[in-house]
């Protein structure tokens, strides 16, 4: 967590049970046309991102946010009683992702924390997919932050 603060007991229980345990592994074939069309839609102008024929063609770093695993939560994660909303995306870039590569994405819950507002407690779940190329090089982390606006059941 970003700040050291008191953690509710039910959240600490979820953290103890679920953080940092891999629950999904999936492979992705990186298609050059998909990369180029992603870059163009985003407004990229460099041929490094938009032209699959460019010598240094690679995906914009944010492209890895489009790689979706089979599931976003562990199969035995409890129903927290509210509808999950996409609260944000994060990317840590470590090496270029290039067309033709096969990436392996391994997902785990990276963080669970709460914020309390006027409408009550919000639970944030951060799912991290670690992405590796075929040589085992760690090329990126892609985080998805889901917020659930409802009091968690103990």
């Amino acid at each position, binding site marked *: 967590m970003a700040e050291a603060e008191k953690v509710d007991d039910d959240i600490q229980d979820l953290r103890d049970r679920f953080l940092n345990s891999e629950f999904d592994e999936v492979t992705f074939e990186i298609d050059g046309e998909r990369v180029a069309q992603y870059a163009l839609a*985003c407004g990229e*102008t460099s041929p490094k991102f938009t032209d699959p024929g460019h010598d240094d063609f690679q995906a914009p*770093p944010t492209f890895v946010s489009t790689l979706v695993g089979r599931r976003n939560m562990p199969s035995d994660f409890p129903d927290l009683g509210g509808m999950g909303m996409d609260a944000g995306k994060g990317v840590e870039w470590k090496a270029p992702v290039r067309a033709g590569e096969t990436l392996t994405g391994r997902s785990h819950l990276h963080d669970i924390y709460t914020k309390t507002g006027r409408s009550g407690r919000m639970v944030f779940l951060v799912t991290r997919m670690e992405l590796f190329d075929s040589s085992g090089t760690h090329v990126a982390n892609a*985080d998805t932050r889901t917020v659930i606006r409802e009091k968690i059941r103990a």
Partner: protein
Amino acid sequence: MPDTVSNIGEVEFGSELPSFAPDTSTDNTKRFGKYVGWDSPRFTDHEGARKEGLPGAIVPGVLSQGFLGAMIHRWAPEAEIIAIDTVFRAPVLADTPHTITGTVTDIDEDEGTVEIDITITNEAGENRVFGTATAKLPT
């Protein structure tokens, strides 16, 4: 600061990046849906989105995040974005003008990195998406 920078020495603390008007059109979200994903009516069709209770079609969050990255690359073509975190505060409505602004909030000349705060704002001046990025530039 010039409209584009090529190395860390050209970056000034507190300076603003050139603003960028992202393509929020449904033509663009349809293309995104066709080639990348997120082709649900909520992203590509106003009427379909209204049937889901939305005020109109919205831009996928992953596309909004991509807008932020493109803005940085337009400003610093040689930059490597090594981290970017995006907070979706409210939907970005398709087919409505939005503006992306960015400010340099930190510079580490030894590491060759800059920190940038970036915001997508609608015509009413409401912040819809907020991001922070770390980019590495040639020294």
